[in-house]
């Protein structure tokens, strides 16, 4: 149903209805932003990247294959843009800043302060772990865990083979497990052990 609506909205946009594209932006802003944030680990830059991804999608909408999922298409645009940004960042940054603490809005849908604190702690931990992975591995992990995409879908998005994706994910999980083990014991660790 959503896919059908997406195609209709794309067609309306192509016919000149800019408002229709606004609906697509509202529908996928969270998905696109989350991908950019997990990849870039900085809220401001992630918003810039997400905006750029939507602008690119709008400019190239006539090239969008309407038989495919719009969400996957816009996510692949965001992925490529984030990889480009990370490459440029590697060339220009002399030193890496400390990751910024997550925005308070992160915990907005969490009822209790204790759970909110745990979610924040989890976010910080996850971002620290992801930061140590190479961009290719990080992207595979993000697409697999937050978007529940199949190996085939991820492979298609990243223009590689399914076996390459499986291999990346396996190595990434092992690297994450090693890093997680070396983390100091915290309330989050205790909570995770308990659950």
């Amino acid at each position: 149903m959503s896919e059908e609506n997406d195609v209709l909205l794309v067609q309306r946009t192509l016919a000149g209805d800019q408002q229709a594209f606004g609906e697509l932006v509202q529908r996928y802003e969270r998905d696109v932003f989350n991908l950019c944030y997990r990849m870039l680990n900085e809220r401001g830059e992630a918003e810039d990247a997400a905006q750029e991804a939507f602008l690119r999608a709008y400019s190239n909408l006539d090239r969008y294959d309407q038989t495919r999922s719009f969400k996957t298409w816009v996510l692949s645009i965001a992925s490529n843009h984030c990889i480009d940004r990370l490459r440029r960042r590697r060339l220009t940054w002399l030193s890496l800043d400390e990751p910024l603490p997550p925005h308070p809005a992160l915990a907005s849908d969490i009822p209790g302060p204790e759970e909110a604190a745990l979610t924040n702690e989890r976010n910080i931990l996850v971002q620290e772990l992801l930061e140590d992975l190479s961009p290719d591995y990080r992207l595979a992990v993000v697409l697999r865990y937050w978007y529940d995409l199949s190996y085939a879908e991820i492979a298609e998005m990243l223009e590689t083979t399914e076996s390459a994706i499986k291999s990346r994910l396996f190595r990434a999980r092992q690297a994450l497990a090693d890093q997680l083990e070396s983390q100091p014991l915290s309330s989050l660790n205790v909570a995770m052990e308990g659950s």
Partner: protein
Amino acid sequence: MAENHHLHRDDRHDLSEEELAALKARMEEPAEAGGQTKRLVRVDRLLSETPMVGPSAGFALRVMAAIAAMELPEITRRRLTTGFAVGLAVAALLVLPVLSGLVIVVASAITNPGILNAGFQVVANGIGYSAGLITDVGESLNKAVSETPMLPALLTTVIPITMLWVWAVWYLMREPRLTPDQQDVV
């Protein structure tokens, strides 16, 4: 299983060192594999239970404003391009007869030695007249400076004032820029 372990323990003294090492490795294997699985499950759980994060409020509006801002120059560019093309065509239509006449005159002048000679004469006279004019202007300036000592001072004052005036005109005529707040909205 526990009974098996008990049997192995009882038979341990009858095993060679190599067999004992192999047995130990085999006995440790399931525990290690279990540990590895546990570590990976922990990673899976951590990632699966971490929620998605959303952008700050008004993100979609900012994207749409950026799209609108992106489209305006595009429309202006297209209008400019169309206007420029029409103007160019009209100019070409007007200039073509004049240019053709000029080419015919030049061609006839080049092929006629009398006209060519007269042309050279005119050019030589023109150069001579120009050189004389420059010399006269130089002499006049020299005379004026020597007779009016205030002129160099006046010139050195007028030049910076003129530059300042030109800059002020440029500053007032340029397009208004967006304030930082407006830029944030865009």
